[in-house]
């Protein structure tokens, strides 16, 4: 068990390391160095920076040194919690990202909760009542759900909301609370705005989950122990819920590992359409403006958070599934 845990944690660290390299590549990719970009943006905004300031920046990030030195310096700064400056905003990157990153996490988690809450009962129903009318209906809806990318669904939902209900259903807060400091009322306002983005984001994941749950449970229901339980006169609900569902649930929990990167990915682009205050629109803006520190940091933080989420789900799986807990010794 400990060996498994250590292996998972090592793999997570390795992944995080890879993500830092990829983020660094993203920062480095545009032609010219970012100090030039920085200087250009500043002078375009009317506040030019002096050659001395440029040199100081170059010194800080070691621009004229080989790539790996630059990478190490950047990593060193990050270790100290210094993610650099967001050029457009003239503030440290972390300040700009702060709240938005949290909201991204909130939306992603809401989408996953929605996915589970819906996929679990439907999956069980579809397996138990196989080939019933509702089973076919769910399968059909599921296929459609899989085929529509999140942002298109968001577009359609926005359009329907706007032209038939006359309201703009985008955003995460009402106008009163958008700029207000955090309070209980603001949290309540947020909760009221969550369902639409959560559903839009969760639909394709739900469709996948239903299919997985259905086929897993079908495999279990064919096994002899289910027949034994029935033969001994157990109530049908007990026959199904007690063991087959529990066994079928295992792969379900493990899928959170790949559901998370998927949902986070989706949230970026869905946020653009629904104008949610997550890191999505920020990332796009920073990329268009070539504000590479902001962009690189967002990719880095999203990646790291996803890896941590995946790690937690793996450890959770270990806790739930005795075969993993005991079998790997």
């Amino acid at each position, binding site marked *: 068990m400990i060996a498994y845990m250590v292996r998972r944690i090592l*793999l997570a660290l*390795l*992944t995080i390391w*890879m*993500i830092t390299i*990829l*983020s660094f590549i*993203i920062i480095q*990719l*545009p*032609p010219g160095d970012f100090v030039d970009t920085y200087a250009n943006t500043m002078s375009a905004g009317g506040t030019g920076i002096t050659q001395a300031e440029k040199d100081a920046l170059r010194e800080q990030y070691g621009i004229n040194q080989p790539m790996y030195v630059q990478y190490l310096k950047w990593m060193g700064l990050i270790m100290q919690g210094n993610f650099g400056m967001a050029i457009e905003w003239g503030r440290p990157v972390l300040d700009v990202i702060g709240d938005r990153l949290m909201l991204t996490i909130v939306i992603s988690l809401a989408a996953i909760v929605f996915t589970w809450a819906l996929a679990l009962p439907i999956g069980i129903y579809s397996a138990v009542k196989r080939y019933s009318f509702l089973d076919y209906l769910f399968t059909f809806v599921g*296929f*459609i759900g*899989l*085929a*529509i*990318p999140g*942002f*298109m669904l968001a*577009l*359609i939902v*926005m*359009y329907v909301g*706007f*032209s038939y209900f006359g309201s*703009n259903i*985008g955003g995460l807060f009402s106008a009163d609370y958008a700029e207000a400091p955090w309070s209980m009322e603001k949290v309540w306002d947020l909760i009221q705005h969550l369902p639409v983005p959560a559903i839009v984001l969760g639909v394709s994941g739900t469709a996948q989950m239903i299919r997985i749950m259905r086929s897993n449970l079908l495999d279990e229901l064919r096994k002899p122990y289910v027949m034994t339980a029935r033969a001994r006169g157990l109530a049908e609900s007990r026959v199904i819920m007690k063991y087959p569902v529990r066994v079928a649930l295992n792969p379900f929990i493990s899928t959170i*590992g*790949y559901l998370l*990167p*998927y949902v*986070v*990915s*989706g949230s*970026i*682009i869905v946020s*653009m*359409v629904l104008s949610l205050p997550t890191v999505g629109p920020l*990332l*796009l803006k920073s*990329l*268009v403006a*070539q504000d590479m520190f902001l*962009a*690189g940091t*967002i*990719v880095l933080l*999203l*990646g790291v958070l*996803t*890896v941590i989420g*995946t790690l937690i789900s793996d450890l959770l799986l270990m806790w739930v599934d005795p075969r993993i807990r005991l079998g790997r010794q």
Partner: protein
Amino acid sequence: MSEKTLPQDSVKTTVAEEKIAVATQWQLMWWRFRKHKLAMIGVVVLILFYLVVACVDFLAYADPNESDAQRGLIAPQTIEWFDNGEFKPYVHPLKGTRDPKTFKRVYVPDMDTKLPIVFFGPGFSYKFLGLIETDRHLFSVEGADAYKTLFLFGTDVQGRDIWSRLIYGTQTSLTIGLVSVALSLLLGVTLGGMSGYYGGVFDTFIQRIIEILRSIPTIPLWMGLTAALPNDWNVTQVYFAITIIISLIGWTELARVVRGRFLSLRQDDFVMAAELLGCSKARIIFRHMVPSFVSHIIAATTLAIPAMIISETSLSFLGLGLRPPAISWGVLLQDAQNVQALAISPWLLIPVLPVIVAVLAFNFTGDGLRDAADPYG
């Protein structure tokens, strides 16, 4: 009676059995595939889609990039199919004026004039399939230029015909899916195959890379990579750069399938037999192992294409993928980003339909292929 039919029946079943016994692997697959109704529909739809890809110039009747502010935001035109009870489709020409109150352009059909739609009529000249010089198009209008009078799906803000743009966009989006999948396949089969065949350290290494790539949220990463493409690159360069970026992550699933097949086949008796007979490694792989999992690879590839199409659409939608003047489904949907604009001109959402239909068709076909490829399914 019964004495007569019985032997005939048994003859029939033995014939059927014999047919199965001597059928090739591909015939068996085809028979199983045929039973999958949704998959068959999927195949037909895909064939239609790729026919569109092959004959874009024939199907489009207007230059997709020719804009004219005088024709901005025309709603899809109503076509009158019957003229005096006779099948003779025609349209009324539109006259654009400006609403004095809202300053919006409004279009009023001129009910007195009828412009008959002609099939296979003349239009701009092009080379059919890149070979035959012709000026025939599926639709044209008698007595007028089609691009000035015919607006099947309406026009966008700049007055460009959406039908024609959709046709050209279909070509880009569907081929980008194929090219990316081909690249992914190359990477996936090579790395997955080596991983599965050699095993050991190399296998572990590849597996870790796959796990790592799969745990990174792809869209932010793609956005970062595509944003760095130089602005002065031309359409073709961007096109290929996007396919490379998309397939950079797409290969992992294919590699997993190939590796899994290799691992299970390596244990099989016929591979062992070939080894004992002294076949070379290359011969074992290409002559004995590959044919037995090609069908699975085809199924996995078909299932991978829709993801690629969606990736391209998403990136272009954000303005980070293909850029105008290139036309793809994602580029077309960029016009639909604004809700207010959508509420006024909902036809800008039309490009959503082909995306959904194409993705569904690929998914159904892939599902059918996967079931057919599995002899125990």
